[in-house]
């Protein structure tokens, strides 16, 4: 049973989709084959070349351990793209499915669900994630768990609201009048028409997850040194900001471009998935 939305052959792909797709495609290639692009070993220290400014040998300079900043940024794609995907994919899947069921059921189940969601949203997101990570211990896997535990509520709320709109339309009644099961009506008929906002939010959320992963890395709760991760790199470089700005600023650019790529992809998908009347 296909839950996924069927893409119609569009006459012309929207520009944001092309641009976003190109950026994210490039990011994924870097994440899969970093050794093909990185000029140096990202972990290799060189004590005669500490905090060197950008040059032909080190285009983005070196950090306070003499590691090549460009190579570290390239190897960090692997971790940061992982964060973007694993920190959101469970929240998206679980939140969307639960939201669909709750939105369809309505009534008291929905009221109860609303209170649970409100309770979770009341906590500041970052504080809650930090609390969970400190219970589970620092590290990437625990960070994925913490973000998923909190993140699903947004998807569930978006999908529930959209399903509530869709279930009142005649095509849903037509399914009921055909004697179709609730399961079939929810997943075959309503969800493909209700999932678009959740998919678009997912793309934005991936960009947010990278920022969150970087924040946690900065705080020492995400990726652990000496692994290369943008947030960790920025944190490491901050003490040398006035004399060696390059070890913080270039990882920052990597975060910005990747975030931009996901946002553009989200905008493009919204245009492609828009229901035609």
């Amino acid at each position, binding site marked *: 049973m296909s839950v996924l939305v069927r893409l*119609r052959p569009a006459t012309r792909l929207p520009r944001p989709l092309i641009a976003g797709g190109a950026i994210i495609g490039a990011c994924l290639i870097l994440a899969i084959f970093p050794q093909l692009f990185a000029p140096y070993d990202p972990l290799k220290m060189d004590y005669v070349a500490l905090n060197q400014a950008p040059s032909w040998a080190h285009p983005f300079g070196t950090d306070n351990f003499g590691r090549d900043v460009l190579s570290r940024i390239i190897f960090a794609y692997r971790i940061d793209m992982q964060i973007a995907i694993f920190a959101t994919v469970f929240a998206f899947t679980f939140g969307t499915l639960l939201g669909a069921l709750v939105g369809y059921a309505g009534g008291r189940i929905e009221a109860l669900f609303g209170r649970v969601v409100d309770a979770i949203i009341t906590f500041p997101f970052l504080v809650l994630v930090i609390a969970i990570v400190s219970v589970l211990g620092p590290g990437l896997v625990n960070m994925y768990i913490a973000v998923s535990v909190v993140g699903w509520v947004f998807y569930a709320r978006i999908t529930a609201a959209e399903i509530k709109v869709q279930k009142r339309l*005649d*095509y849903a009644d*037509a399914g009921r009048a*055909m*004697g*179709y099961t609730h399961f079939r009506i929810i997943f075959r008929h309503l969800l493909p028409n209700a999932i678009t906002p959740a998919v678009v939010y997912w793309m934005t959320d991936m960009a947010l997850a990278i920022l969150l992963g970087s924040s946690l890395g900065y705080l020492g709760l995400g990726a652990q040194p000496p692994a290369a991760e943008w947030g960790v790199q920025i944190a490491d470089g901050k003490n040398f900001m006035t004399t060696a700005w390059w070890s913080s600023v270039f990882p920052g650019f990597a975060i910005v471009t990747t975030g931009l790529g996901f946002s553009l992809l989200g905008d493009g998908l919204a245009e492609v998935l828009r*229901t035609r009347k």
Partner: protein
Amino acid sequence: MTDIILSAQNVSKEFLFPHSILARIRGEPPRAVHALNGVSLDIAKGETLGIVGESGCGKSTLARCLVRLHETDGGRIMFEGADVSHLQGPARRTFNRRVQMIFQDPYSSLNPRMTVRQILSEALRVHRMRPAAQIDARIAELLDLVRLSPDAANRYPHEFSGGQRQRIGIARALSVEPEVLVADELVSALDVSVQAQVVNLLLELQDRLHLTVVFVAHDLRLVRHISHRVAVMYLGTVVENGPTAEIFAHPNHPYTNALLRAAPEVNPTRRTRTVAARGELPSPINLPSGCLFHTRCPHAMDRCRTEVPVLRAFGKNHVAACHLDTFDPTVTKDTK
């Protein structure tokens, strides 16, 4: 009398307003819209029954109750002599295969993300109407039946006009080979030129497939054109039910009379300015006592305000719910 295939017996349906905590503390009773108030009517096999009434009289609610889209709050829906009001699961699916519905709005009644082929093959598969190998052939047959070209199968609903979509809706309903078709305002969303096309198609299909049709509409001329019998509804009750020609020639209920006189005459020399019923439709939340029509009826007597009239015979297969035995159709509230 001919075989009764589907009937409503004293069916009622309420839609409750949200009952706030404050109202509960104050001890106020929950408020509700009384959409159906004891509707009784029989539908004979092979006939077309037109259901007419003004907006908000419960026509659509009744249609939805007949196909079990709404649960009834009271009374029974009978299909071939068996109570179907509480069927669940496979039994309900079987009932729905035999009693299908066509919806009013051609723009929201088709899933925008499914091609016509997917819509039809889903119905055929779920109800196991054909073995998998014959499904494509059957889809072509159904499209031919509703006069759509075979290449329509691979297109999405947004590629069709309103009339074409309504024909896809008919094909979907017919795919499961039902015996009863409930059409809720089948053509009211369509242009007049397309209306005739779709209605004639329905009539032709009814003849070919021996369907029983319940045709819910507010357009009296249309109902007169296609129905064998007409049921007139007012505030969630059937006030009159009889053969089309009799209803239109000499109505036995003042409301029917008012409704017929409200329809503009095509011939301008026969138009009148007299008003057969005055005032607004009473609120379905607080229903009038006695006869529901007494607040607007030019013939209302004291008895009408206290005693609810029941449907009684005024001729062969012709019933009306009125205390009057005869009334003068030219009397209006002004002249009284």
